[in-house]
């Protein structure tokens, strides 16, 4: 499936509804995969391309909402567009709180569904891109020596070189060397850049004692 630019998964127990959705979404050039139940849609089918899931709330075996939670628990991150014959407000609130892209009531307007699908795919694309960036940053951070990590943690918390040197018991020049080497390894152009990177990596900043 990786030859497709993106994949739209559809889970609906009514075959004719599933076929109609597949036809509609297929007509705008998207690849669609159809499943009759939640059990058939296995997380392993989610490939490394932007994807989204059109999920019926009322399914045999498990409700769409429970399936959404199950996916989140097994760390499958896929944007979900819910479709239901009779959605009530609590149901909608629950779905949206759990991160659903859209909640459509059957029968839905074709444009609403297509917009929701595009939005979901875009969201997944962005998430994947961010994750890729984060993976690069993490890799760079991993390449730092323990001393360099210690020093930049203090740098991003706003300590001066002099203070850092006093704290770790070394010369100010040594701190400067560690700092410039760490900046180089992280490919940070400025101190502000480094602070942003560390923030994204969620590294705990050191506290001045």
């Amino acid at each position, binding site marked *: 499936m990786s030859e497709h630019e993106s994949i739209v998964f559809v889970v609906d*127990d*009514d075959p004719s509804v599933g076929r109609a959705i597949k036809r509609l979404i297929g007509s705008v050039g998207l690849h669609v995969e159809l499943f009759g139940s939640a059990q058939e849609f296995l997380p392993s089918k989610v490939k490394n391309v932007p994807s989204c899931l059109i999920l019926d709330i009322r399914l045999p075996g498990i409700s769409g909402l429970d399936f959404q939670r199950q996916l989140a628990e097994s760390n499958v991150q896929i944007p979900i567009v819910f479709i239901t014959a009779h959605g009530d407000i609590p149901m909608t609130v629950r779905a949206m709180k759990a991160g659903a892209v859209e909640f459509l009531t*059957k029968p839905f307007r*074709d444009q609403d569904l297509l917009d929701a699908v595009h939005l979901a795919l875009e969201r997944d694309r962005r998430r994947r891109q961010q994750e890729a960036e984060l993976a690069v940053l993490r890799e760079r951070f991993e390449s730092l020596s323990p001393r360099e990590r210690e020093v930049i943690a203090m740098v991003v918390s706003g300590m001066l070189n002099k203070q850092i040197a006093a704290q770790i018991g070394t010369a100010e020049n040594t701190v400067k060397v560690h700092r410039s080497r760490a900046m180089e390894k992280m490919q940070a152009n400025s101190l502000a850049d480094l602070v942003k990177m560390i923030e994204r990596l969620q590294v705990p900043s050191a506290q001045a004692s």
Partner: protein
Amino acid sequence: MGWVEALTGSAVMSAGIAGMHYIGMAAMRLPAIAQYSPLLVMCSILLAIFFSVIALPLAFDLREETRWTVPRRLGSATVMGLAVSAMHYTGMAAVRFMPSSAPDLSQAVSISPLGRNAIVIVTLIVLLAAVVTSSVDRRTGAYIELLNQDLERRVAERTRQLIAINEELRKEIADRQRAEDALQEAQAGLARVTRVLSMGELVTSIAHEVNQPLTAIVTNGNFAVRQLDAGTPNLKQLREAIAEIVEDATRASSVISRVRALLKKGTPDRVELDVNEVIKETADLVRNEATRNRISVHLDLTSSLPSILGDRVQLQQVLLNLMMNGIDAMRALTDQPRELVIKSTRSADGVAIQVQDSGMGLDPRQTERIFEPYFTTKHSGIGLGLSISRSIIESHGGRLRTVPSSHGAVFEFVLPTDGAGAS
């Protein structure tokens, strides 16, 4: 006082009188020998008995009579005196004395004047005691009489009370009958309500069933318009989409006609029905509800069953009720398979239909109570479903009951095939 007592009493009394007389005669010490005429002796005794027989009833009847006591007492005493004197004088007439030598006084007793006085005093005391006893006896009689009257008065009063209570009970029974009639009327009203209620439960399910084909129709329609707008339509796909639109529209309309049949009001029909067909139609209505609860519906129908006479809607209502109960019973199951089985078989007296779930089963202590009105084991139930179902089946001349099972609950009803029991 009966005759036997009177005669016995007279005999004892006469024996006393005669004994006293002849022992007294024998105690006499005379220079003569006494000779008795047997005939006169017999005569004296008979006379004593005769007067005693008259005197005794007179004396004893006094205790029971309240009037004429004094004349009767006097009469009784006179006759008693007659008995004593008649016996005595006849006895005296029966004896003849022949002169003899000096009397033999070896056995004679001489009584001093003091002794004589003592005898007189003792006799008087005995007499007094007799008088006192008799008086006490009379008073006791009067007291008993008083008690008797009191008792009678109380019996009469209690009888009056009982009559009043009886009257009240009769009134209460009438009231209760009226209440029961009213209850029956109310129940009939509620039966209509529950039919609507169980329909309400189903509306959600039916709405879904209609909405699914509608969704497909709208989506396919949109697709077709888009294809045509694009100018270069994929004709194969376009044809498929339109064919499915027709198919789904037919599906939606069949759901609606089934619902309309269920909602149709009116008096119970008696038409020839194929039980299997009724089961299939009803199963279609609950299938969606079952799927939503991960329950599989399995039909195990015997083909070519004889047709029955009945009301389609009413029988659907019963089946619907039993199936929904089965679904409710399995909702909470986690580790067992959830299966609803509906069976139809030929039975000795008609067609038997069984609805079986794989839930927790019935509490054996409640297998009859569940048919009572307002008895429910559900959190949100009014407890009329089974009671109404049973009355519907009974009005078809059949019976609805539970069947003991090791696995889940089983309800069975038998419908007669000849329709003879149908009313």
